[in-house]
């Protein structure tokens, strides 16, 4: 892996690989995650994907992509720490598999550059019909999280837990802010974004670095640069004095219990391992006890939010099992804190993490997502470095780190008929 600066605030992470059928090329603007701008950035990605000066509509764009053997360019909006990453990920078959021996990298990079630098416009604004239809689509997409009750509950927990902190802002923003967007505001936001935000580019594939750099320099020749901002500082999470309990009702058959914890320790590797023991794998305490032993649920797992120092638990249960599940989750956390572990548990958790780091290089998508997260949060460890950190963690460090983990917010989604 090498990271170079192509232009002011434009960085290329180059990941050479000959083992894939495809090349991946990703261009991501990295900006602070804020309520005021999140929906505008999300909308921009969708509008830019509608048409460029030379391919002004979806038909013309998909013709270009089809000719490149079904190359794909997807709009992506991701949350990494307290940054929002908005851009495009292109995936195209690697040149060596093109039946006609064509070069595909240059035209794909060219199209990516056009999407960013040369959107189709009218009177100095995006086309009104694109603006209106993508605005409706964005509002629909924001609302549709309700359709996936697990994702909905997970997102509601984070919002409640991190109220007033950027980390509580969903990656697409919200409906109210989307409704207030208008064409001029959005075009200004676009110009601001492409001229002042950091642009992180990733390439994985068989082409040599000079060829990739040349292709990108040509593709982004018209990108206006007025300097670029550094990644935002993370806002520390302020835990409440006493845990907060929030209950919501929807017409569902299964309840969702979410529990958020704040971690007082800065020992990320120890917390990561502690979380894996707690609920981070299918051999964790939560899986083996809440699911396998007590049969309370199909899923009960926990996630360590490395950048923010939080742990969240997600589970789906019968409404009336709320208290049993809550008690058992707390009891299992206590077991990890106090070192009530069987011999195999720690090594299984450690090898689960090491296996994940070791196999990351086998997936272009995972590599891109990993290095984007690193770049967006101003970190530079490789997966191997993180694996070394995990190898070095002692049981004592885990217990000490997990001892700082405190219940912060509990979110329970229950049915309309059920009584609390």
């Amino acid at each position, binding site marked *: 892996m090498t990271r170079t600066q192509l232009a002011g605030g434009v960085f290329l992470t180059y990941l050479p690989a000959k083992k894939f059928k495809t090349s991946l090329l990703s261009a991501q603007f990295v900006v602070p995650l804020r309520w005021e701008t999140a929906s505008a950035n999300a909308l921009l990605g969708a509008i830019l994907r509608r048409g460029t000066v030379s391919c002004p509509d979806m038909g013309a764009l998909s013709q270009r992509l089809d000719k490149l053997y079904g190359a794909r360019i997807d709009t992506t909006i991701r949350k990494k720490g307290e940054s929002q990453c908005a851009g495009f990920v292109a995936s195209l078959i690697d040149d060596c598999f093109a039946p006609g021996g064509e070069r595909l990298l240059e035209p794909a990079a060219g199209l990516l550059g056009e999407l960013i630098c040369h959107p189709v416009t009218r009177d100095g604004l995006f086309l009104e019909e694109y603006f209106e239809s993508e605005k409706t689509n964005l509002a629909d997409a924001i609302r549709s999280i309700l359709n996936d009750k697990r994702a909905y509950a997970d997102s509601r927990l984070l919002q409640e837990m991190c109220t007033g902190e950027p980390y509580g802002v969903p990656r697409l923003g919200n409906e109210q802010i989307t409704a207030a967007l208008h064409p001029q505001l959005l075009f200004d936001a676009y110009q601001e974004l492409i001229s002042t935000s950091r642009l992180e580019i990733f390439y994985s594939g068989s082409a040599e670095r000079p060829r990739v750099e040349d292709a990108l320099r040509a593709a982004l020749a018209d990108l206006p640069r007025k300097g670029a901002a550094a990644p935002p500082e993370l806002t520390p999470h302020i835990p409440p004095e006493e845990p907060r309990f929030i209950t919501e009702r929807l017409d569902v058959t299964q309840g969702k219990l979410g529990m958020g914890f704040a971690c007082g320790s800065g020992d990320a590797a120890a917390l990561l391992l502690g979380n894996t023991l707690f609920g981070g794998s299918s051999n964790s305490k939560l899986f083996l006890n809440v699911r396998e032993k007590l049969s309370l649920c199909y899923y009960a797992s926990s996630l360590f939010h490395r950048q923010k120092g939080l742990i969240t638990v997600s589970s*789906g249960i019968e409404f009336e099992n709320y208290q049993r599940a809550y008690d058992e989750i707390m009891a299992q956390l206590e077991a990890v804190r106090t070192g009530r572990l069987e011999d195999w548990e720690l090594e299984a958790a450690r090898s689960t993490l090491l296996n994940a780091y070791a196999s990351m290089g086998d997936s272009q998508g995972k590599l891109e997502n990993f290095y984007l997260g690193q770049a967006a949060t101003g970190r530079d460890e490789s997966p191997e470095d993180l694996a070394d950190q995990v190898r070095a963690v002692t049981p004592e460090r885990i217990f000490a780190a997990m001892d700082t983990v405190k219940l912060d917010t509990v979110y329970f989604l229950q049915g309309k008929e059920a009584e609390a």
Partner: protein
Amino acid sequence: MTPILYERLGETVYCETLPNGLEIRVVPKPDHAKKYAFFATRYGGMDTRFSLDGQWLDTPAGIAHYLEHKMFDTKEGNALQELAKNGAEPNAFTSNSMTGYYFDSTDHFDENLEILLSFVSVPWFTQESVAKEQGIIGQEIRMIEDNPDWQIYVRMLRALYQVSTARTSIAGTVESIAQITAETLYQCHKAFYTPSNMILTVVGGVDPVKVSGLARRILPQEGGPAIPRDYGQEPEALETRETRLAMEVSSPQFLTGYKCCPVQEGEDRLRTMILGDLACDLLFGESSPLYQRLYSQGLINASFGGAFELMPGVAYLYAGGESKEPRAVAAELQKEADRLVREGLDGDFFQRTLRASFGSNLRGLNSFENIAVSLTEGYFGGYDPFRFPQVFDSVSQEDVLRFLQENVTESRSVLSEIVPKEA
């Protein structure tokens, strides 16, 4: 092990059939750290009625999936933990027509493969352990019942089919799984988990001969008899034209489904799958005139999509997503299919779509999981999925048009809708 070279894909596949009937496929990937093993039986959610030892048995809906959950139990404890100790990430899934167990790992591959082959071939259930699973799977069923994507899909299948077990939910219902006992699970294992009904696929930097040696050592010496199954005699007619359910969702969703002509096993299956995929791309794919028109009119959004699917004895094509006007979209889709059949395809559009579809098939080979699952489906379906470049060379516009004409007709279509509950 016999190597087969697929020059246009840059892949080699080692194949062997063991004396006990087990099929083995090894796809070497020496440059990858990850190694992936997939061990599958031709037994899924549709196989509820079958004949064992000369007797027809009716088993509860959801039993193949239930068995999948219970297979991880071993006499010594649980195979999940054994694999996890070596850093392997194991899991399993049950589809309509197969159950697959798999893991990926970067270290201790041989040891892990041995564990996989052992726990899948040696059942170990007690009444107590079987009863305990009711709560877990009960919650899995509750979870999917709250999932509109699942509801709309299953309800579409139940509209399309009158008797086929394609109607059966893979996980079953809370009531049906209550009838499952240790004894029935043993019977089903005996019938379907025999080497002659299974295939082992390994993808990664491993020695094919070693894989084969391990399988010979661990698995039973004898295969089992072929198990006749009864999927029901499905008539041509639909069960119903329309179905609709109110749920807690943000906006209306729909699927329109077409009951297509069933496809026999054999090489023709791959060809029909590719024709079906092409028909979908040409009719309503993102590059199609219809998609672009409906998208600009705001009748569909990025959630719109569809596919052509084959299951034992049945085939169907579907499309849908969120829409404020499901009926209008379904009607437009039918009109477009009729128009294509009447006027023919634009030659340039057809060539581009072929190219794009070829690229998308090639892209699929990046994924070890996808390689293993398609080799498995290919074996069960009697075709070689890695021959897709040759099929792409030979399909014509007329083939696709004939497919549309035979399958995508008004009289074969159903509409499944989910609408938001009134507050």
